Every structure is written in structure tokens, then in C-alpha cells.
């Protein structure tokens, strides 16, 4: 996903002179490549996220489309005021590429985990927040970043994630993708997912289907603007809605979905279970997969949450 994203920037730069690239002391091979592929429009700046975001704003004010690339937690937390004021208030077409969203940097500990990036980015007016599920979807998405108005936060996963997206389902920023449709013969369960949690949730849905629990899955690659119409249409009348994200349960996809449902279906809210990272800093290291397992975000954990959530309702 990360190489695909970066390669796409170079490809876009070759066909559009507005494209610029700013790195922040990340990935030496990129520095070499940008000097060849987009000379004069790509810079490796220092460890200075506040400046880098302001500089990107200045370039955008002059008509450029800067893609800024650094570690997710530093491009969101460290320079939050610059993102809010320089990018969102001015509504400038800057693309923030957050490397290692979620638990990717598990072995490096809580200073390097971006577990609340979606929440803080989506709180900002004019910001678009996107977390695609695999490299193929990244390709389809990046083509649309050229002319999207306003800033975009792009959450990158670890890379080399299994491909689960399908070209025939298309891709439009802000439009949810129904990646699995329940046959409708049993309890109606809707999974709403984003990023690589989609991959895990699809596997969980397969596991549950074998038990007669058939789930639909709505993939929200765009968390803001949220495709509220799709959420409401698919959630209406469900026995259970489960949101699944590699992100704190505070303010992320789950919150966005609940906000939407409360507004749209005030007297007919389906039961909602929000599955994510608890409201706490990580206390463990290991790998992304291990932490996702710890938080119940791997397929067996997701499947068990859904079974448990359905059980009391069955008993009733």
C-alpha cells in the first residue's frame, strides 16, 4: 500500500505539473527517486512537521497540490494546529499521507502509534479522511486525489496487505462500498469497517456464514465525508450493526456511524456494537497483528464479538 501510494504520486507528478512532494526525513530511496522523477517539485525536509504543513499550505496557495508524507502520528498530532489553520481553514488541496496508521508501529510503542488519528482529523471542518483497505484500492483512490477540493488525510497501513478490494465495485471518494451482501435468510447483521479492518472483518464474516450468521459488510474507505446514506440504508432494520476499526473507540468510525444513525433513525436505532482499540495507550509491543489480536480485531475475535452480541438477543 505504501509503495503503491508513493509510486502513484510520482506517476501523477509526471502528468500534472501541479503535483509536489514533501517528505519529512523519511525513506531515503524516495529522496533519490524524486530527484529523478519530479526534480524541482519534491523535497525531503527535516523533522519539522509544523513547518512542513505550513510550507505545503504556501505551495497550495500558489496553485500546487502537495503530497506530504511522514509517520501518521507525527503528521496528525505534532502539527495539529497547522493542519487545522493552514490547511482546513484555508481549505487547501494538500494531501497528508500518514505512514503506519493504527498499530503498524507496534514494536516502537505508544509514541509511534496513530490510534486516534481518524478522530482528530475528522473533527476538522473541510478535512477528508480516507483509509483504504489494500494496494489495489489505493491505486483507484490516488487517481481521484488530483482534483478533490480541500485537504485529505490518507491513512496508510503496513503494506503488502492481502488484496480484498474488487475493481468492479468501483471507487469514489465519499462513497461506501458494499463488499459483502447477506443472503437475508437469517439475522440481519451489518459490519461497517475501514482500512485493513475490512480485510479482517471479511474473514470473520466468512467464518460466521458457515454457522448461519450471514453478515453484510459496508467498507467505509472514506470516514469523512461519511456516506451516511449508505450507512442508514443498510443499517435500517438490522438486528445488529458492528463497527470495526483499527483505532480507538473514541471518535473514530464507530462514533461517526452512531452519530449518523442517531440523527437519521432516532426512534429505530438498531443495536450497535463498536469494536476498536480501548480508550488507553498501548501497553504491549510485538507486531501489528499481535496487538490486533489482543484487541479482538483479528477475524476470530471479531466473529466472537458478533456471536456474543447476538446471543442475548436470541435468548430474548
Amino acid at each position: 500500500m505504501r509503495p503503491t501510494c508513493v509510486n502513484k504520486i510520482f506517476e501523477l507528478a509526471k502528468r500534472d505539473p501541479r503535483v509536489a512532494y514533501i517528505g519529512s526525513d523519511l525513506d531515503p530511496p524516495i529522496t533519490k527517486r524524486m530527484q529523478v522523477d519530479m526534480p524541482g517539485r519534491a523535497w525531503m525536509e527535516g523533522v519539522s512537521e509544523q513547518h512542513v504543513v505550513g510550507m505545503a499550505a504556501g505551495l497550495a496557495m500558489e496553485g500546487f497540490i502537495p503530497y506530504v508524507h511522514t509517520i501518521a502520528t507525527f503528521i496528525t498530532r505534532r502539527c495539529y494546529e497547522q493542519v487545522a489553520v493552514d490547511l482546513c481553514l484555508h481549505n487547501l488541496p494538500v494531501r497528508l499521507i500518514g505512514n503506519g496508521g493504527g498499530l503498524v508501529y507496534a514494536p516502537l510503542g505508544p509514541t509511534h502509534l496513530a490510534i486516534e488519528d481518524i478522530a482528530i482529523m475528522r473533527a476538522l471542518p473541510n478535512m477528508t479522511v480516507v483509509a483504504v483497505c489494500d494496494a489495489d484500492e489505493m491505486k483507484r483512490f490516488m487517481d481521484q486525489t488530483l482534483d478533490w477540493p480541500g485537504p485529505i488525510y490518507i491513512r496508510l497501513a503496513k503494506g503488502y496487505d492481502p488484496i480484498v478490494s474488487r475493481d468492479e465495485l468501483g471507487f469514489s471518494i465519499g462513497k461506501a462500498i458494499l463488499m459483502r451482501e447477506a443472503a437475508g435468510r437469517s439475522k440481519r447483521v451489518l459490519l461497517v469497517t475501514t482500512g485493513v479492518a475490512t480485510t479482517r472483518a471479511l474473514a470473520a464474516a466468512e467464518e460466521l456464514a458457515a454457522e448461519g450468521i450471514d453478515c453484510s459488510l459496508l467498507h467505509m474507505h472514506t470516514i469523512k465525508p461519511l456516506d451516511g446514506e449508505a450507512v442508514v440504508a443498510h443499517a435500517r432494520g438490522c438486528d445488529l450493526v458492528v463497527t470495526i476499526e483499527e483505532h480507538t473507540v473514541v471518535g473514530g468510525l464507530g462514533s461517526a456511524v452512531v452519530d449518523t444513525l442517531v440523527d437519521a433513525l432516532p426512534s429505530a436505532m438498531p443495536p450497535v456494537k463498536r469494536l476498536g482499540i480501548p480508550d488507553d495507550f498501548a501497553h504491549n509491543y510485538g507486531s501489528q497483528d499481535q496487538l490486533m489480536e489482543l484487541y479482538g480485531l483479528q477475524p476470530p475475535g471479531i466473529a466472537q464479538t458478533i456471536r456474543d452480541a447476538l446471543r442475548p438477543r436470541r435468548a430474548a
Partner: protein
Amino acid sequence: MANDAGLTILPGLATPLDERSVALRRLVVRALDGGARGHIGSSMSLIEIMRVLYDDILRYRADAPDWESRDRCILSKGHGCIAQYVMLAEKGFFPHEVLDTFCRRDSILGGHPEAGKIPGIEASTGALGHGLPIGVGRAMGLRIKKSQARVFVITGDGEINEGSVWEAAMSAAKHGLANLTWMIDYNKVQSAGPTQEILPLEPLADKLRAFGFATAEVDGHDIVALGEVLRRLPFDAARPSALICHTVKGKGLAFAENDANWHHKSSINKEMVAQMYGALEPL
């Protein structure tokens, strides 16, 4: 003292104000009266800097604020905005009557300037430490476009407590942005007191040079000296320029000069307005 602009200028802060400088300050009071609040000392120290920029240095078209070849003037110390509003009104970006609406609900003129609302404002500022990074990006963009337009960023002195300013300074030097000029309204007093007590900046000129800027100092109330030094930009063809403008907080209001209590007033009554006008009798 000699400086990188090749001039020897002694800061002479007792510079008397001429008729125009007094008149411009009366327009500041007009806006303060309109809004019944505002940053007083921070606007008064900026007047001659803004006056000389808009009278003699900047290239712009008031009837076409987005003219591509204009110089980009970013007031990073957005709280001093009334000084810029006054010059924009003087130059016809909007009528003088708009000054009376300062800070009112439906005004275009807020307590900090907003791009897109006010013709001639290049960036929404007020949160400190944002102007220089934006200025670096704009200067780089203009260079790619092979534009002759220049970028001027005016910061305060307390403002440069912000680390983002120094991040941007290193970057400006790295990229050799000779089309970028950083002016510092060095009035020596920030919101809570003297800069030397809150967070000492000295030796400021040495710091700017060490960060890679061709640096000069000037009496920021001496319009002749300001014009002379600014006409020498860039001070170096391969480096960004910095100009330390030695100013007096509240300049022109004897009772408010160098007094942090006059940095900002959230309530300005008619008596205070009369007091300010009284100190600014037309010559």
C-alpha cells in the same frame, strides 16, 4: 551598525511622527472605536512598516487583489491586523467606512485577518508561528513558476518564541529563498511583559544570521530608513533576507508606549478613544 544590506543605520526610536503617520494612527483608533476592543500597542508599532511597504515597496493592484504578479504580504502577527486594515483601506482595497465595523458580527474585519474574506489578505493568521512556514511554501511555489513576485512575512517578537518559526527559517536558508523577506516588528514587549523577561531573544541579529538570513536592522518608525533598506532587497542574491525593525510598542500614544497593559484591550470605552485621539492631534 553595519548590516547585510550595506547600510549603516542607527536605531533612533525617538523618531517624530509626521502628518501621515499620525493620520494612519487615527484610523487605527477609528477601528478600535468601531469594535470597542482590539490590539492597540501591537498595531501602533507596525504602522510605519505597513506604511512603507504599501506606499513604496509592495507591488499590488487594489482592484485585482489576486493579480498573479503581486508581492505576497503575510502579516504573521495577525493580532496587529488593524495596521494592515488601515493601509488596505488607504489603498482602496475596501472603503474606509469598513474600518468602523471592526470585530462586529457581520464584518469582514475580524480581530485577526482572514484570507478569502478581506481583499488583500494572503493568509488567515492569528495563531502565531504560521506565517513564515507558509511564506516559505509560497516563495518556493513562486520560484517554480519563475515569478518575479516576492514574499514578505511580518512576525512579531513574542511570536518568534514559537518553534515553527525557526523550523521555517532553517528551511528558507536551505532553499536559498532570496524572494523571501522576514520582517520582525521588534517592539520588545509581548503580551505578558518585556521580551527580555518572558523569553530573551538576544542576540537576535546574530541568531538570524546563524540561521542563514542576510540580516539588517532598522528603526521601524523611520520611513526614510525603512524605504532605503527595503529598496535594497534582496540583501543577498542567494539567501533569504531578514529585517529587524526596532519599534516601540504603542508608538504615538505616550501613555501606552512600552506598556504591556496596552497590548490588547477587550473593552475600549469612549473615554479611552478620546484619550487616544488626544494623543494623536493632527499636526
